[in-house]
């Protein structure tokens, strides 16, 4: 088992673009990095049978999600020669157009950063106990289903 600590990935509300910029900026001292791959999930104003989505309200089984994320992190570090990875996911309400997921992976050469970032995103969507409730403009709601 690795010595890495379990990191929190959750924060309340949307992820601000300025937070993403700060995260990028912090890596300028790591001059072994040659490529960063970033994925951002943004809430879509989908037209549904219930109405138009105005926000998604996220809940999670936090302790289980963080343990699972820790395991994913360990496996990704074992599989790819990456320098660092960062994951942030919103809880609570995120309005359409706002960012709810930020995955950030860095490596000396681009391939590891890109491939690991993609795999992290897929695993987050498939394996983390997080649920999004779509809130419609007419204030009805429905539970989101990932494809």
């Amino acid at each position: 088992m690795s010595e890495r600590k379990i990191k929190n990935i959750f924060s309340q509300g949307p992820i601000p673009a300025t937070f993403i910029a700060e995260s990028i900026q912090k890596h300028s001292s790591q001059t072994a990095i040659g490529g960063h791959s970033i994925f951002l999930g943004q809430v879509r104003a989908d037209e549904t049978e219930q109405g138009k989505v105005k926000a998604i309200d996220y809940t999670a089984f936090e302790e289980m999600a963080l343990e699972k994320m820790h395991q994913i992190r360990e496996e990704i570090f074992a599989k790819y020669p990456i320098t660092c990875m960062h994951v942030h996911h919103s809880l609570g309400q995120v309005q359409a157009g706002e960012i709810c997921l930020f995955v950030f992976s860095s490596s000396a050469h681009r391939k590891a950063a890109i491939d690991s970032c993609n795999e992290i995103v897929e695993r987050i969507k498939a394996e983390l106990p997080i649920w999004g409730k779509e809130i419609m403009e007419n204030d009805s709601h429905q539970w989101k289903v990932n494809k």
Partner: protein
Amino acid sequence: MKVELTLFGQLADIAGRTKFQLQDIPDTDTLQKKIHEMYPEMANMSYSIAVNKKTIHENTVFEGDANVALLPPFSGG
């Protein structure tokens, strides 16, 4: 033996609560049966079960008090 149950997403909506306790439940199959008696709507729903934060894939016998969570399909990200 006590089962501390936590419901998420649509399952919590149906139950109208996110947490409750059940007594004298020996295993997860019995638990599911009990839950479906209480909330028949859940019998037709797809969800997974986590015992002490680990997802189980077959009937699991409780060895002492247990925290059980009912998890609808995930939709994070």
